[in-house]
């Protein structure tokens, strides 16, 4: 079986509609972020309390909220987790804390309110994370450093392995992927926590991976034929690597979909972010990275042509 064998799509002539599409998606995502007042950061980055409570009796978000309000705790985000075939009713409770608040006291207060409303044996706190605001700040800072450092090191590696213009194009494609991913995270209201940051870093790796495979082919083809126009070489390289691109993305997506369906409440957002990232990464290696490479090349040629005339 084969797909896209001897394909000859004119990817590069589709680059202007692709730019438009990318710009539109990025704008929607950024608007969503602005509209929601920033990305929703989890308690790992703000400090606070995260509880996963399993009730053996049926209840709903409203009842839980009332119980907590009666007990004096407000500002709790409550989310029902849907677990297939489970015998319990699971809810996630999140409370961010400020610098002056004591996260442990809030946790104890929540537990006390739940015990008042529901009998003590009818629920279990299956997971309980409490983090001080200070630790949250530190996690946030290290996450930002990790993402930036990851960028920097890969850029250095690319500069070392390829010409500088390949590196620039690859980085622009990756930034494009991250902007879109952040937009989706905002649209789907996925919270930013350590696992999401790990997913974002993986996307950076994956997206670069895809782009590198294409660029590796471009470099090889440029060495072989000097007569062919630059854009034709690029387009041919894209088509030649297309089967690989589709197949690898496909197998990765199979693995990720099995995670989304079966992986459980904690893994689902993480796997969801990765799926978006893989799709965007595949798209960008074809419609963003190579076209940007062409733009850089054209601009450089025009400049040298002007320089030659004067």
């Amino acid at each position: 079986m084969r797909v896209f064998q001897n394909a000859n799509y004119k990817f590069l002539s589709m680059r202007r509609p692709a730019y438009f599409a990318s710009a539109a998606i990025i704008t929607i995502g950024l608007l969503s972020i602005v509209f929601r007042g920033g990305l929703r950061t989890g308690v790992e980055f703000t400090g606070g309390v995260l509880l996963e409570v399993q009730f053996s009796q049926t209840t709903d978000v409203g009842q839980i909220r009332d119980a907590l309000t009666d007990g004096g705790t407000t500002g709790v985000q409550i989310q029902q987790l849907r677990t297939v075939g489970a015998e319990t009713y699971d809810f996630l409770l999140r409370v961010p804390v400020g610098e002056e608040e004591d996260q442990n006291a809030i946790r104890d207060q929540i537990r006390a309110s739940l015990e008042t409303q529901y009998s003590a044996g009818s629920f279990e706190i299956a997971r309980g994370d409490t983090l001080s605001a200070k630790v949250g700040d530190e996690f946030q800072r290290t996450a930002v450093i990790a993402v930036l450092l990851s960028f920097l090191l890969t850029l250095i590696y690319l500069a070392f392995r390829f010409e500088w213009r390949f590196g620039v194009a690859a980085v622009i494609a990756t930034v494009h992927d991250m902007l879109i991913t952040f937009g989706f995270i905002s649209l789907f209201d996925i919270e930013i926590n350590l696992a999401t940051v790990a997913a974002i870093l993986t996307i950076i790796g994956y997206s670069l991976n895809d782009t590198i495979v294409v660029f590796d082919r471009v470099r090889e083809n440029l060495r072989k034929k000097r007569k062919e126009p630059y854009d034709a070489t690029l387009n041919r390289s894209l088509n030649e690597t297309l089967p690989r691109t589709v197949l690898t993305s496909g197998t990765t997506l199979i693995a990720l979909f099995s995670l989304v369906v079966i992986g459980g409440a904690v893994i689902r957002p993480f796997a969801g972010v990765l799926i978006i990232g893989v799709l965007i990464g595949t798209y960008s290696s074809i419609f963003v990275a190579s076209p940007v490479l062409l733009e850089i090349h054209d601009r450089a040629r025009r400049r040298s042509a002007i320089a030659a005339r004067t």
Partner: protein
Amino acid sequence: MFGSVRWRLVWIAVLVTICGFALVPETIVDEVTGESERVWPLKLGLDLQGGMQLTVEIYDPEGALSGEDLDDAVDRTLTTIRNRIDEFGVREPTIQRSGNRIIIELAGVDNPEQAKRIATETAFMEFKIVTDGQDFMEALERIDRAIVNEVGIENLQVTTLETEPEVDLSDILGGAADSAAAEDAANEEEAVEGEDPAAGEDPATDSLATEEEAADAVDEATARPLSALLGQGRILGEYLVPQEDQPTAAAWLELEGVREALPRGVTLHWGVEQVGAGAGSYVPLYVLEAEPLITGDMLQDAGPANRDPTFNQPIVPFETTRRGSRVFERGTARNIGENMAIVLDDRVQSYAVIRSVLSRRAQIELTPGASFQEAQELALVLRAGALPMPIEVVEERNVSASLGEDSIRQGRTAFIIGIVGVIIVMMLYYRAAGILAVGALLTYVIFMLGGLAGLEATLTLPGIAGLILSIGMAVDANVLIFERVREELAAGKTPRTAVDAGFGNALSAIIDANLTTLITGIILFQFGTGAVQGFAVTLCIGILASFFSAIYVTRTLFIMYLNRRGSRESVSI
């Protein structure tokens, strides 16, 4: 020799065998129940096996501590926490320092609140005088009656019946002079003295004053539950309780009526060390003066452990604060010749004879038989109690064991579905070559899991996600190679040259792609904590395993496949 198919297969077989061995489940036999349990050798993170992780730091809102002081304070707190957790009896606790924080990981804790309280209480040290036990012995009858009243005689029958061996205990300890306990007693003997080591007073001698009472108690065992458990100690005011009965006795001593029956001015403290005597193991119980000689906040510093220049026995010097020295001087002047117990967190760590009046500087002299390590441990205990630091919990994570089991089950199912899905796609798409890729994928999984087990990496929930993600990406290298081979075949090359060219041309892309992902993995490992580090580890091991399986294993399988086909000029790809 590395090129021939046979050698390639040998290398692969060796690696697969090593990884396979790392994955063989171990059988662990529980020493108490005799039940054997088969344990999967992968170390599971707390999010998978259930448990508690605490990150604590020294509570210092004004920032009074910095540099070396802070460093030292963290070290001392670490010692305190270690001592307590060891006492708490959790299986394989991890207590480590990370910067100026301390991370405590306790797997399978039934009572997280209690564990947390134990770990985070401020260390509290006191030096207290060991009484002669006379008041306590007189009060024993009252105490026994209080226990009978509160617990009820019918409940006690059972308990006392279980404590039959007490008769032996009295015998052994009564005749301590010629038993194993004698040696033990000699070894444990310590003395405190001032800077002048010449004060050569005799160490405290064992007294048998209470032997009579103890023996009496056995005769009336049913009526005198506590007395029946008490055996003669090595010094006055020390009693030995069989280890298996210690929890019962400790519970009795907490009873309201028992507290009231205790003589005034006296408190009871358990010791931390276990004393071996004959076949049994005993926990010492001390009767101490309630009023401490000095408390930890009056202790300036202690250690390092040293050796006495003339007699060469280990010594631990310590220093009191200016205020403490006055209190200490008055206290020791009144109690020369008495035993002074070092009590940390309500438990007696050690005791020593006061030989002279002590003030600012003093030293604890261990008996000649004591090891230098014992002295070092004692120095750490003293330092932990000196200037105790309040501890603040900055991060706490609890996961119940049942939730962990759910995660493992879901992860396993997702793993199997993911791998089966990828296998189906590869076989459909590449036919015979697809089967080779599947073979390589299976060796990849063995390398991956074997690598995790062999490096004793911890598998966390994001780690499982990383594992599943890497299955999809592991075939990438194979796909790159196969696509190349197809191209070369389409260009009219013979199968053998096409395969060679395919592997050769795909290599640079594979290396670049793997290295960039490896960079990300290493950064994640460096900056991540806990669960994210688990993800980074699986990602990095996965990249190395997939690289080897694609480049080496697939190629070997390909060569075998071509050899088998002989001269036929076609290849199924």
